[in-house]
């Protein structure tokens, strides 16, 4: 390897909070963009193919496992992106100038708690 070929962007040098939240925000953003297209595509296909009957039939499949777990994963992605996004907005507005690190846990922590509780209730309802 030539010295100039060393990776300068994602070199794994033991990431700390800032880098994980930065990468997490980009990764969840990409996932949500991909999901949005998938969502619109499926809705469009179902609507064109058969209307209300097909829609209800598909909905019954999608509200059972394993799709239910995927749904929970989607909620996790949305919650992370939203909570970390609020942290960055507060930092930009100078309302979390010195506390952005702690704010990550104060926002993403409760979001994770909501996910766990909501997920437990949801899964209990399925059984």
């Amino acid at each position, binding site marked *: 390897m*030539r*010295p100039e070929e060393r990776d300068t962007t994602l070199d794994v040098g*033991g990431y700390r*909070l800032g880098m994980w939240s930065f990468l997490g925000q980009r990764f969840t953003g990409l996932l949500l963009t991909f999901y949005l297209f998938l969502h619109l595509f499926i809705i469009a296909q179902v609507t064109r193919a058969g209307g209300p009957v097909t829609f209800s039939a598909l909905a019954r499949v999608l509200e059972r496992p394993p799709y239910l777990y995927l749904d929970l994963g989607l909620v996790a992605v949305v919650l992370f992106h939203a909570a970390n996004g609020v942290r960055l907005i507060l930092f930009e507005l100078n309302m979390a100038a010195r506390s952005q690190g702690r704010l990550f846990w104060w926002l993403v922590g409760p979001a994770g708690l909501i996910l766990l509780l909501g997920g437990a209730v949801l899964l209990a309802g399925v059984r």
Partner: protein
Amino acid sequence: MDEISFRIFRFDPSRDAEARYQLYRIRPEPGLTVLSALVNLREEQDGSLAFRASCRSGICGSDAMLINGRARLACKTQVAEAAGDGTVTLEPLRGFPVLKDLVVDQSDFWEKLVRVKPWLIPGPEPAPERERLMRLPAQQFDELSRASDCIFCACCYAECPMEGRHRAYLGPAALVKAYRFEADPRDAGSAERRGALDHPDGVWRCHHVFRCTEACPKEIDAAWAIQQLQRRLAARHLRLKGDA
């Protein structure tokens, strides 16, 4: 303490086509710093080992390098702490051209620093005949003194992923210096600095990864200083403030 290994990045552009890692073994004394270990290695095992150092006490900023992948000062890092699994890996700072082994070319770093005009630019009032007194109240000095602590070690440049991706980005240290003078009530150089700061490769390249703040050996909150500059420029664009 038991014997430990130093795995050191070696590259001599006049002889090597590729970089390699060389292993050295030492038995560290308690309290040995990575820099002292390097000095010992050069004196006792391998005189061809190149690294940059000067003050040995975290003031000159010469001996920044990647220690186990993270940009740190060799003189402020204990071998005992770094050798968690018995090996300390030393590499030159990321993102800078390697001159030899652990020594990098920092020309680009200094050139960026000069671009933000890191000096006090006085206002238009005529200079007095004998001397100009420009006192700063103690409280305001405290605000600026953190940003003044920068020792130009370039750890923040090696850690910043934006700097790694966009080499034209001014980078944390230069922007911290810009903030130090922009926030100084005696300074009137905002208009002169605006071209460099209010630019895609100026303050707006920062995406708040906070690795500069996490890496700074002088504990300067560089990400915060950059965000303060962003706020000032945003307020100007939104016409929330006068021609500040």
